[in-house]
């Protein structure tokens, strides 16, 4: 691209570099973000010989600028002349990978990983791998930390001698004397294991895993747990028991709750990795212990996994294991002292019914659901209600409806508006499952009560809820049960309630269709254009704009237009504005 454009000379590198040196950080940042433009202006040759050396030499800037630089360089391959020259990008990225600030370093490593794929195998050995080695033996912990993320990208494509060196470097970092580096190594152990040949997984990785999993710092040990899961997926079944299980068993009983938490959190992955036999013999008792752990954090993490764990149990013994081992623990968790534990359980417990079938659900699970529906913590009750669909499939919701109702009513009147909001969101679902009759009888009045809630967010959600209900139960139902009540509020002394009528009409007109809108809603809206409160009047204009498309053109011309014209000459500036807007949108001018 050396096409000697005459205007190339207009932008000598000095000017650009001047911009990169500007005192104002914001300007420097802007320039760095436009680095590709600068490179393009310079052409590939000068980018390689002038711009990159400059960038490499002047890395001392603010972290924000460095972050932008690190990100840019990851996309620079074409700008330096393609994969053939990609290694020119390594020196600046190497410096960035040693910076203190974590986000900069991580971005530099990300970019390095990206461009590593653009290196030819030869370049990888000549340029990339030496860089990894330099970082791995850096003085300050930052460069060693960065090195940990680079081993796995170059390992698969280098010769066996270089591979041996890479393994050696990784081993060294796993026993680094700063915990930061050990943590970085532990978090990349699984990834590195995946690119290694199986013999080396067995000979190298296992010993590193065992060492990291018994590190003196719990923050290192807990990262080893995740690596353990990845390693387990790589090994043949017959090796698991000897090579990883002792360490994983030990992790599940670690004295630090953080490590046990990690085990609980990764339990489903672990279960998949080790297969059915080990699950039956080892994981079931381990899971029981985690469900009974002395720290609530651990119990909550385990409770979250109850459904997934049970689902993935081997089919032949699933029911027996659940009934004899898991369910007793679950029963205890229902009355746990910690609300987070109960609420974690409540978010998954309903899922057990599909696994256990109708009879067991009625006999064993139903009492638990009912107990949780009466729980003092609203989050628990909400989680149960939000998962009703699982139970509905198995035993039908009627079994629950007697207890459901008081729970819903209580949540509907909860002092916290966020709780009320959450229950409103489940109303359409509940309505669908409980049927129109039950709904009319028990829940309709609640839905109407929310329309006059003192919190706007609730009134808004209630309006939206009505729309969804109409979509479910149809226009006729709307006309008989909802519309009269909504329209009745148009005469309320409180202007907020009068506005709610308008908001409801906005939401319902489309679902109710032209006839109901024209016959019942429009007259009310038009009448409200005489309201004494300006907010109501301009909302009339907004409503007319909204429901206009549902009405026929005759009605628009004869009824809507005169009212909007009147509002367009209102004394209030906002009313005028919205009336004019409606006129132009509905093309009535």
């Amino acid at each position: 691209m050396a096409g000697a454009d005459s205007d190339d000379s207009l932008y000598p590198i000095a000017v650009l570099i001047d911009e990169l040196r500007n005192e104002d950080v914001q300007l420097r940042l802007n320039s760095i973000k436009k680095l590709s433009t600068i490179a393009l202006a310079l052409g590939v040759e000068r980018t390689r010989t002038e711009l990159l050396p400059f960038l490499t030499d002047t890395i001392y800037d603010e972290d924000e600028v460095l972050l932008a630089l690190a990100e840019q360089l990851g996309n620079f391959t074409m700008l330096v002349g393609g994969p053939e020259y990609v290694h020119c990008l390594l020196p600046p990225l190497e410096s960035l990978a040693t910076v203190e600030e974590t986000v900069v370093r991580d971005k530099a490593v990300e970019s390095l990983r990206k461009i590593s794929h653009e290196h030819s195998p030869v370049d990888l050995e000549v340029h990339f791998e030496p860089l990894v080695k330099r970082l791995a033996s850096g003085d300050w912990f930052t460069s060693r930390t960065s090195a940990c993320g680079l081993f796995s990208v170059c390992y698969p494509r280098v010769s066996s001698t270089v591979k041996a060196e890479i393994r050696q470097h990784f081993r060294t970092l796993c026993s680094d004397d700063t915990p930061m580096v050990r943590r970085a190594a532990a978090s990349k152990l699984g990834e590195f294991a995946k690119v290694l040949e199986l013999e080396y997984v067995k000979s190298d990785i296992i010993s590193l895993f065992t060492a990291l999993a018994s590190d003196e710092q719990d923050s290192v040990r807990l990262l080893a747990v995740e690596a353990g899961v990845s390693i387990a997926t790589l090994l043949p079944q017959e090796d698991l028991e000897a090579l990883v299980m002792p360490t994983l068993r030990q992790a599940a009983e670690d004295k630090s709750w953080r490590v046990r938490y990690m085990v609980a959190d990764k339990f489903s992955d672990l279960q998949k990795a080790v297969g059915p036999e080990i699950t039956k013999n080892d994981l079931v008792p381990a899971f029981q212990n985690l469900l009974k752990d002395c720290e609530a954090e651990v119990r909550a993490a385990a409770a979250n996994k109850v459904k997934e764990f049970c689902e993935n149990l081997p089919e032949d013994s699933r029911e027996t294991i659940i009934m004899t081992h898991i369910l007793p623990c679950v029963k205890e968790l229902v009355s746990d002292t910690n609300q987070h534990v109960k609420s974690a359980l409540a978010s998954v417990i309903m899922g057990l019914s599909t696994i256990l079938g109708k009879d067991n659900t009625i006999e064993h699970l139903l009492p638990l659901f009912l107990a949780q529906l009466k729980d003092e913590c609203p989050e628990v009750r909400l989680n149960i209600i939000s998962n009703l669909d699982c139970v509905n499939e198995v035993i039908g919701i009627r079994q629950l409806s007697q207890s459901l109702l008081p729970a819903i009513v209580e949540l509907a009147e909860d002092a916290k508006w966020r709780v009320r909001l959450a229950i409103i969101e489940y109303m359409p679902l509940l309505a669908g499952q409980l049927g129109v009759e039950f709904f009319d009888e028990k829940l309709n009045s609640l839905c109407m009560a929310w329309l006059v809630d003192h919190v706007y967010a609730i009134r808004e959600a209630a309006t939206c809820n009505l729309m969804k209900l109409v979509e479910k139960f149809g226009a006729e139902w709307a006309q008989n049960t909802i519309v009269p009540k909504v329209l009745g509020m148009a005469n309320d002394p409180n202007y907020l309630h009068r506005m709610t009528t308008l908001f409801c009409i906005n939401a319902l007109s489309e679902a109710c269709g032209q006839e109901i809108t024209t016959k019942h809603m429009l007259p009310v809206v038009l009448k409200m254009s005489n309201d004494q409160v300006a907010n109501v009047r301009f909302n009339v204009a907004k409503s007319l704009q909204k429901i206009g498309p549902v009405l026929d053109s005759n009605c628009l011309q004869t009824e809507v237009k005169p009212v909007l014209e009147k509002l367009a000459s209102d004394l209030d500036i906002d009313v005028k504005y919205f009336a004019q807007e409606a006129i132009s949108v509905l093309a009535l001018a």
Partner: protein
Amino acid sequence: MFISMKDPKAMSSAATTPPSVDKVDGFSRKSVRKARQKRAQSSSQFRSQDKPIELVQLPLLKDVSAQEQPELFLKKVQQCCTLFDFMDTLSDLKMKEYKRSTLNELVDYVTVSRGYLTEQTYPEVVKMVSYNIFRTLPPSDSNEFDPEEDEPTLEASWPHLQLVYEFFIRFLESQEFQPSIAKKYIDQKFVLQLLELFDSEDPRERDCLKTVLHRIYGKFLGLRAFIRKQINNIFLCFVYETEHFNGVAELLEILGSIINGFALPLKAEHKQFLVKVLLPLHTVRSLSLFHAQLAYCIVQFLEKDPTLTEPVIRGLLKFWPKTCSQKEVMFLGELEEILDVIEPTQFVKIQEPLFKLIARCVSSPHFQVAERALYYWNNEYIMSLIEENSSVILPIMFASLYRISKEHWNPAISALIYNVLKAFMEMNSALFDELAASYKSDRQRERKKDKEREDLWRKLEELELRRGIQNSDGVIPTY
């Protein structure tokens, strides 16, 4: 923090507050932040025991003969290895009381007695202390624990723990205590566990730990480098990984006196600690909790070695807060502490970037920031430095001061600015007049430069666009 729980505060008290309160007015309670109850929690490793604990009641030390005392003392120390569950307030009441009185007795005994410290006492004492104090700290109760607002969670077993700490401190301070024997037991592993405990939420415990660590640092020369290195690691992890560690202020306090004792010239290791660990600590969000201790450490370093002034001030400039005005005020305070001890030769080296920053601060729209910066002009020593270098500083400051004197929304700031301008005028009236005269044309020149920059970028973009069209094969990344 470590585990994210869903919105615990939003949900927590819903069930306990009577619904009627909120029904009246949704906003009424917002103003009254509910005082969180002080809660206690105990060690995470404690798993409840089923059987009650029985300890054999031993006679009092003062009731036995002097020869029998050392043996009885050891027995009592061993008894104190037994741990009790303090979350269960009803269990083992009698035995808890017995352990408490035994610990009390041990504290008194090590304070006044002589000759009890036989060689076999050391491992037993260290073992007892380890059993009692080393434990996995429990998870923090709320994820957004704000140490300035929230009450800390207190350690439930404090009635015993306090006495154990007290006993250990007296033991370390005892005249008969011999580090040469004790170092076999108080080793690196012991210190590492001790340092981890500084994350305790209970300020009483951190206070005891501070004394313990200080004594160990003083008496065990072989552990000093190790302790410093581990504190380094804790800080680095705090700054770059977790932003959470409760004992930073306490550790800095110990470091303050450690730095004080550094021999001159400072070793490279110590300078690296200053630049790569202490300065980055300024970036942490919860700086206010340990800023006083941190600033003290920094000033200690500068008093030891004034040539460090330049890297320190450049470090502060690098980490200068961009959005948090509270932190900016703290930084300005620290900078004044540094300027109080700065040597004139060092001042000259750093004055340009420094006063560019101060110019930015005095024109901050946040009046507390502007005010804090303007207070520098009340500091006689700083004034004398400014006066000596007014020919450099005045041109840097002038534009900001001149503009702000007319524009600042806060009248108090305008008044302070006026005084500063007046001071400058008195210092160097010729230069002042010159700057005032060229103010307008300077601004014009700046505007022209801005326009040129815009033009440059526009042309570059055009060029890029043209190239993009020419090179239809390559996708050109633009950001």
